[in-house]
């Protein structure tokens, strides 16, 4: 009997690994990393690893926020534009003479406000999420362009901001954004898995009707999802302003696409109800690694977008393939287990 038990548990561990929604991407990543480390001496150096980690920060913040929105069954196209806007708020307010802390708080507040407006438009006015956030993307970009008159914002950097932006490290390769990212990831992960609000996100995303019948305040939950995404865009804005030391008004262009791609590569479903913080980080890492490898291998810049396109489709296909494979193995082992137990 104990022999059967141990067999079942080892099989269930194998199932767990194979059934993991990001198993395909993880194995693909491992393969690529091994190949790259073997053939490219400049890849597995500590300098390059820090490079990759630094480069993935901005997308990571946005992807975590996007994951929350996707789980609740929505989509947020405004994250890139909100990030640019909050970066602008930070930079401009500092040049107006505001102190750093207050500027950060106002940036986060602007992010939350944009999220709130998104949420209200989508829930109270019943505008499709895609369109509401697309309109907010345009509005945010327009505000930023008009405010800056198209001129990049300069001259807001100070010593503490160099640390906060991650340009100066606190010890070794560790910078403040890394710590912030870990803290944010842990908080959101706990929020999603252990709190009522988090479980409600999953419930609303899986089926709004059943969630409402079960007594979940669907409207409020959806608004919260967009507010969280807005605040995290604010965090990304503060970070990118510190990292780039200038803020062109269109700094956020295309980031919404990267964020969605990262979240989906990490196993979030655009149909709602599925997604994990880990997955978002994994997706962000995949995208950043792709860019990094393209640079190291020296692929001509015109080919870069093509490679990214293939990586996107390839990653989702890999997840899909391993899911099917995992399911099949799962079914087979279950059948075998049942046979053993009955024998």
């Amino acid at each position, binding site marked *: 009997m104990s022999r059967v038990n141990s067999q079942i548990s080892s099989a269930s561990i194998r199932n767990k690994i194979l059934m993991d929604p990001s198993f395909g991407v993880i194995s693909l990543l491992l393969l690529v990393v091994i190949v790259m480390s073997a053939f490219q001496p400049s890849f597995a150096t500590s300098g390059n690893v820090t490079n990759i980690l630094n480069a993935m920060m901005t997308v990571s913040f946005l992807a975590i926020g996007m994951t929350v929105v996707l789980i609740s069954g929505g989509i947020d196209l405004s994250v890139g534009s909100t990030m640019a806007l909050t970066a602008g708020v930070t930079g401009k307010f500092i040049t107006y003479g505001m102190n750093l802390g207050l500027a950060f708080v106002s940036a986060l507040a602007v992010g939350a406000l944009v999220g709130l407006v998104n949420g209200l438009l989508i829930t109270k006015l019943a505008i*499709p999420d895609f*369109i509401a956030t697309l309109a907010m993307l345009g509005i945010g970009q*327009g505000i930023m362009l008009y405010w800056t008159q198209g001129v990049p914002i300069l001259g807001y950097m100070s010593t503490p901001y160099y640390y906060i932006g991650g340009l100066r490290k606190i010890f070794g390769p560790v910078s403040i954004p890394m710590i912030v990212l870990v803290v944010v990831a842990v908080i959101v992960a706990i929020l999603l898995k252990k709190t009522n609000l988090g479980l409600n996100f999953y419930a609303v995303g899986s089926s709004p009707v059943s969630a409402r019948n079960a007594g979940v305040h669907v409207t409020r939950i959806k608004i919260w999802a967009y507010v969280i995404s807005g605040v995290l865009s604010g965090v990304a804005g503060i970070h990118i302003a510190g990292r780039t030391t200038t803020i062109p008004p269109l700094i956020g262009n295309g980031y919404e696409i990267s964020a969605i791609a990262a979240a989906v590569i990490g196993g979030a479903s655009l149909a709602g109800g599925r997604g994990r913080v880990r997955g978002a980080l994994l997706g962000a890492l995949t995208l950043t690694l792709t860019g990094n490898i393209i640079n190291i291998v020296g692929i001509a810049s*015109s080919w*870069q*977008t093509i490679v990214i*396109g293939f990586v996107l489709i390839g990653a989702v296909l890999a997840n*899909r393939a391993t899911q099917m494979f995992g399911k099949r193995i799962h079914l087979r082992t279950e059948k075998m287990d049942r046979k053993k137990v009955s024998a």
Partner: protein
Amino acid sequence: MKNMARFSRILSIEGVALLGAFVVMVTYFSLTSDSFFVGDSIRYYVNEAVPIFIITAGLTYVIIAGGIDLSIGAVLGLSAGTSLTFSMWGWPTWAAALVGIATGLLFGAINAVIITVFKVNDFIVTLGTLNIAAGLLTVLTDHKQLIGTSDKNFLAISETKVFGVTTAIGISVLVVLVFEFSLLKTSYGRRVYATGIGKLPAFISGIDVDMVKFQAYVISGGLAGLGGVVLAAHLNSVQSGLAGGYELTAIAGAVLGGVSLSGGRGSIWRAIIGALFLATLKQGLQLAGVDPLIYQIITGLCILIGVVLDKSVYGFALRMTSKNLAKNDQVLQQGRSA
């Protein structure tokens, strides 16, 4: 009472609110700007928007079938690039045009295969092919501008004028008519609606749901190819990044026109009115001398207001109609009992 009923019936025709808003906007711009309601000006900006109209028609198929196609803008740009390149190599006009359309069909088929056979999310797949098409255009143009085919016939695809209307506009009208007709009056069109309304019920009633979606993506890709040929013939130059973001304008236009992103509701002419609305707005703002930096703010607000207006007018009309029906029922019943 009778007038009210008629009024609510008119309002309940979907798209009337948008059409009303469109007329108001055109009137406003015509009154405030002398150069707005002039033949040349109208022809100019409608011509500019023709590729968007063409891809909006294809996109509407995909959205009604319950999918989404983000790749159309980039595919349109790439098709413009391939057809112009072949024309510059001295290929005959029809061959160059076919190459452009084939490029679009190819991308449509790739989207269709990955989405329907491998069951991968449509948003991500078409986002991927968007990147691939945009990248291929960059490679094709090699960061320079493709410019100037010597084939006059190729340019004539868009620029021939018949009764003062360019062929480009003619092509887009033809596309809208043909595809609207097949959407509304053929069994394929019905299957597209059925698939969008409910995949499972459609499947159970014997519709090959995947095939319907497959065809919708191929149509969308093919029309993006056609749009590319028209654009290449219109501009006679192609550079990398051409037509980037057209997909978002097309989606916004379609949704403004009442096409539901969850599938199963919408029609092509309304989607086109939506796209025309956005194109006219841009032109009007330009002529009114509005600061270009705030275009996007105004466009964004107009999209929001338009969608809300469409919904509320439609809802209002439905309520009115049902109220009238209830009243009629009462009258009938009273008549019967008396």
